[in-house]
């Protein structure tokens, strides 16, 4: 137990917080020593909001620049690529046949055979997201679904789901590593990539989430857990007690937000007095609604 600065830090939590960083550090060292080779990384964006690539750009352990220049050969991302049009699509479809890791954000639009999401034009022919993910997904060494939409449909598949969006897994007959979250934390992705480079696929739970990050419920590590156990509940946003009665989804959401926190480890929703909306749980957002409720069961202790 570390009691510096008057606060108590659990060594286990500290170690877990550094999981991604220490894996990445090992990758750095081994690549520098030529023990480890860089691998190709393709990032497909399908039906989504680009939130996951934006989240990744906010990563600091390491930063995005290091990922694309030192850890991997970053082959393709539609938002960041210098090439465009035919050149970009040629770059993308020159990949099958080589060794690559496929990262996918966004859900797969399936209505009208995928026509609701055209990602580009190759030799005058429209390429649907559905076609791209099937072609690239079957031949990749690893497929990582990033964010809520790619892992289970997420916001893109929320009612009424006009484009008939589905998860990446639904259109691929192979193992897909799933990193749910809206968005995915940069560490969850960086840590998974680093683990793949070093040791191969990380250990996954029954729903294919890396146990490194998704092993424990938010509720079990919530700093407000003692209020729940004592039955002391918040009545409104801003109260510092347990937000269970307001609709907090921490008890059904497996992820490490309470210790990892966001925006370069600064804060997270509950610490900022808003309930967890279960964005890292399968079924988000429909199954996690209502996000906030004031018309609630009795039981708030003053």
């Amino acid at each position, binding site marked *: *137990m570390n009691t510096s600065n008057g606060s*108590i830090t*659990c*060594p*286990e*939590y500290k170690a877990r917080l550094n999981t991604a960083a220490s894996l990445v550090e090992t990758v750095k060292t081994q690549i520098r020593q030529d023990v480890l080779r860089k691998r190709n990384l393709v990032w497909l964006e399908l039906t989504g909001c680009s939130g996951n690539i934006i989240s990744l750009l906010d990563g600091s352990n390491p930063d995005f620049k290091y990922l694309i220049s030192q850890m991997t050969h970053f082959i393709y991302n539609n938002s960041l690529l210098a090439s465009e049009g035919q050149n970009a699509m040629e770059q993308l479809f020159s990949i099958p046949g080589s060794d690559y890791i496929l990262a996918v954000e966004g859900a797969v639009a399936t209505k009208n055979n995928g026509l609701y999401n055209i990602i580009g034009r190759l030799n005058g022919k429209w390429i649907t997201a559905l076609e791209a993910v099937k072609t690239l997904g079957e031949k990749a060494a690893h497929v990582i679904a990033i964010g809520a939409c790619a892992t289970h449909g997420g916001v893109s598949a929320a009612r009424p789901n006009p484009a008939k969006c589905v998860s990446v897994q639904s259109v691929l007959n192979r193992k897909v590593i799933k990193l749910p979250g809206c968005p995915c934390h940069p560490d969850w992705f960086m840590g998974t990539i680093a683990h793949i480079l070093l040791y191969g696929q990380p250990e996954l739970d029954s729903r294919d989430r890396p146990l490194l990050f998704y092993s424990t419920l938010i*509720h*079990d*590590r919530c700093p407000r*857990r*003692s209020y*729940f*156990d*004592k*039955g002391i509940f918040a009545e409104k946003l801003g109260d510092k007690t347990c937000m*269970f*009665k*307001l*609709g*907090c*989804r921490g*008890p*059904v959401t497996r992820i490490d937000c309470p210790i990892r926190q966001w925006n370069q480890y600064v804060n997270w929703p509950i610490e900022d007095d808003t*309930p967890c909306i279960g964005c890292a749980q399968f*079924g988000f957002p*429909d*199954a*996690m*609604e*209502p996000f*906030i*409720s004031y*018309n*609630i*069961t*009795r*039981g*708030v*202790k003053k």
Partner: protein
Amino acid sequence: MRVQDFSGKNLDRIMAEINYDISLLYVVPCIYTRNLILNHLIDRISMVESVAVAMSQTVQPQILPLQPGVTPIADPPALMQPMAPGTQATFTLQELSRFDGKGGNPAYVAVNGIVYDVTNNATWAAATHFGLTAGKNLTNEFASCHAGQPILSKLRAVGKLETM
């Protein structure tokens, strides 16, 4: 856990877990981990306690007041008075629908003809659970997600659902 589930083997396992938790508490320096272990311990003790209560009564075990360890200890007062444990109340679907967890009412759900109190169940925040709302017969929904899982035995049963 119901009395019939509580074979000697299960009791041995739970007692072993309790003893293990106690030994662990002596050596764990971290208060967070210690709290987790204490929670686990409380849960296991309440299992033993609930079976002890069940064995000392002769009413049907399905509607005994079984207390899960993670539920807040104090049951708050409610506008619609929660059913007293073991009263064997019978609910029609219409009566059940008033226990929807809104306006200060408790949250009840029915599964397989038994009505359970989920007011303070952690997974039923704001009386909703994965898009489901309280005050309903959720037998089919439960079967499609939780078949074979030991969940119902940890909920507090408050009565029966009237069959047509």
